């Protein structure tokens, strides 16, 4: 903690307080799909960051898989206009 404070002093014109960092990290933690999310303050900031990186990577992979699936489906679909109308009605 002390090392972090000394770093924030060297940050320059904008002082980044520990409270700011903790606030942002807690916001990140709330977004993570963890069952233990309700027990806040139990995870260290480093762990939250690590899980954030892993979660973003897994989301990227999901979007990759979905775009592959969509490209296959678009190849096979004969009419896209019917799908448009259907999707608009469904939503």
């Amino acid at each position, binding site marked *: 903690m002390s090392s972090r404070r000394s770093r924030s002093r060297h940050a320059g014109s*904008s002082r980044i307080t520990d409270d700011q960092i903790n606030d942002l990290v807690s916001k990140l933690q709330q977004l993570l799909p963890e069952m233990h999310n309700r027990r806040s303050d139990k995870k260290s900031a480093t762990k939250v960051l690590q899980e954030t990186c892993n979660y973003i990577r897994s989301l990227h992979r999901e979007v990759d898989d979905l775009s592959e699936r969509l*490209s296959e489906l678009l190849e096979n679909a004969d009419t896209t206009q019917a799908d448009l109308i259907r999707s608009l009605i469904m939503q």
Partner: protein
Amino acid sequence: MSSSLMSANPALNSGRSSTRRRNKKKIQSHAIAENLSSNDQHQNSPIEWKSDAQQQIYSSKLLQALRQVRNGDGSPAPKRVHEAADRALATTAKGRTRWSRAILTNRLKLKFMKKNNIVKRQRKVMTSISTGNSRSQRKSKVKILRLKSKSLPAFQRKVRVLSRLVPGCRKQPMPVVLEEATDYIAALEMQVRAMSALAELLSVSGSSSSH
């Protein structure tokens, strides 16, 4: 007389075209700046990526983009679908976040800088061959990287990794990276929801039409 006129004209033309290019760039930058300034007034209200309205907006944009991808080539590659989905997501963000702006500007950069990058790579190769010190250069680079990873505490290292994952945040300070990451995660989750819903629709319609 005529020769002097001819020599004068190309100079004028080149001047005009360069000023036209400059004017176009100015207009584009002004447009972007105006958009940003008008959005800055609303910056306190971030986009609610969980709402159905946002998902509908994104889904319609995604469908538009996918139709264009399909009509352009005979077979849309998954990479192009992914890029179109990312661009639609960035457009839905309305330029309020750095990652969305980075996604939209990166397309233009890639188109224009592709040639420059190839030239730069060739120059690097030539210099390394000519100097013949490539091995020592590599060793010194590796040493520098090792020192950096040891001196930086774990927290800073993780923030660096995160800044590389979120587009447009490589050189941003820590609180900016964390803030962008929260919005980016919410947007990605919505993207997954919208794309899976669309995939379900298409697969259902595809199977029903075959029967």
